[in-house]
């Protein structure tokens, strides 16, 4: 794993409020995400994990604070949002594949219309990546014809086809039947091994411990504790985290 210490994403005092501060989904989050980090975000429901992740590529517009990505403040500077978004891949809980397009079209649309790649070029790359997740033979199928685990693997590949510098995962295995969780985690593990920078919200503690190099615990819109998997899982400090781990690990 390559971990040099230039922070790729610097999050400073990030806030997301609803109803004029009545709901504080994020309340001053500070964190640096380094190149090559596999950051796993855990925390109870409603703690702001999704909001944090979605703020990173501005699917959610922060109320306040800054996110510096590759030297530019994407919240406050005037930037081309689309250009910046193509550098961050995102994988959703419910896959969000395009149902009216085949798998191959799902994978090649954005590279063609956003990056201006030729059809052949885009398809070559798509098939190569599909092959690696073992789905090359399903290239001409439609999303409805795939199982949940297959859909999620395709969704990951779709993001990868854009050559992103960072991959964001929001509970990628939560909507899957238990027997399909493994195949998706396997793909993510591969990705981590290759040095992809990843931020991953998940309830899979085994994955967090095994693959993550940093674990972030969130509660009430804040990062309560952060550290290596050993530190978070074996030597938790804050009572909130201990309480949380007690609940998840016994389940």
């Amino acid at each position: 794993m390559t971990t040099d210490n230039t922070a790729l994403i610097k999050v400073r005092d990030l806030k997301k409020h609803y109803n004029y501060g009545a709901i504080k989904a994020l309340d001053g989050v500070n964190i640096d995400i380094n190149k090559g980090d596999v950051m796993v975000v855990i925390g109870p429901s409603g703690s702001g994990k999704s909001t944090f992740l979605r703020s990173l590529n501005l699917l959610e517009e922060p109320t306040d604070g800054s996110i510096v990505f590759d030297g530019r403040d994407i919240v406050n500077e005037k930037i081309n949002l689309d250009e910046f978004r193509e550098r961050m891949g995102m994988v959703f809980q419910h896959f969000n594949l395009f149902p009216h397009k085949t798998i191959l079209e799902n994978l090649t649309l954005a590279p063609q219309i956003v990056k201006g790649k030729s059809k052949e070029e885009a398809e070559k790359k798509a098939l190569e990546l599909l092959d690696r997740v073992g789905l090359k033979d399903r290239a001409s199928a439609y999303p409805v014809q795939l199982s949940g685990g297959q859909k999620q693997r395709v969704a990951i590949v779709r993001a990868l086809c854009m050559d992103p510098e960072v991959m964001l995962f929001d509970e990628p295995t939560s909507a899957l039947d238990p027997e399909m969780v493994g195949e998706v985690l396997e793909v993510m593990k591969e990705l981590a091994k290759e040095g992809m920078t990843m931020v991953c919200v998940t309830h899979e503690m085994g994955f967090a411990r095994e693959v993550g190099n940093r674990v972030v615990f969130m509660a009430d819109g804040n990062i309560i504790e952060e550290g290596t998997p050993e530190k978070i899982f074996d030597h938790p400090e804050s009572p909130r985290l201990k309480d949380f781990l007690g609940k998840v690990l016994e389940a």
Partner: protein
Amino acid sequence: MTISWGNIEKILTYGNMFQQGLIVTVLLALCTVFFGFFLAFGLALMLLSDVRPFRYLEKVKTDDINKKKRNDFIAKFNPVKLIANCYVQFVRCTPMLVQIFLVYYIVFGFITLPKFTFFGFIQFERFFPAAVALALNSGGYMSAVIRGGIEGVDNGQTEAARSLGMSKAQTMYHIILPQAIKNILPAVANEFVTIIKESSICYTIGVQDIMFNVKSVQSATFIIAEPLLMATFLYFCLCFPTSKIIEYVERRMRQSDNR
């Protein structure tokens, strides 16, 4: 008043008038839905637009919560949406008959249309204003349907597309519209049926549709009931099969959805 076979036979000798009326009615409905659809589509995009000249006020930082609320309120102001909304409300809240008269007597009172007939019997200078008025009306109603169809596409689709770097326009064109069309087309087809019926008031500006010919036959033969029955029969024969076909196609489309 009695209904007799003799009378029915008599009005059947005016069969070609009913036939011409039928053609005018169908043609009028087709033109209306065609042009109404484009109008509706434009209106729907306007209703969904995000043109906000004062959006920068959202970003203004202030600790005064009332000021913040006021700023956010002004930031929401969208003139494009407002115009479309006003138009839709005007169409909905005024009678169709009034709208037709407005178009025929006022708008085309100023604009002189060339006088000619096409298909041998359709007077352009009456047909055209009727089609315009109906399209303006129908477009207003259909815009809500199209907007609903677009909004009905799961928000996750937009998020996925945007997260891949697609622009708003690309997302709309490549992702949203192809999916929305499934929600929209049946409604547009139903609008066709509605317009077949509602266009019957166009006889008031002299468009020679089914109803106009009913009046003509009535005054030529002094038979009142049977021509009306004939019109009832014709409208029903137009609308019933059409709506059944739409229902069938809609059902088929839904089945193919959850393959």
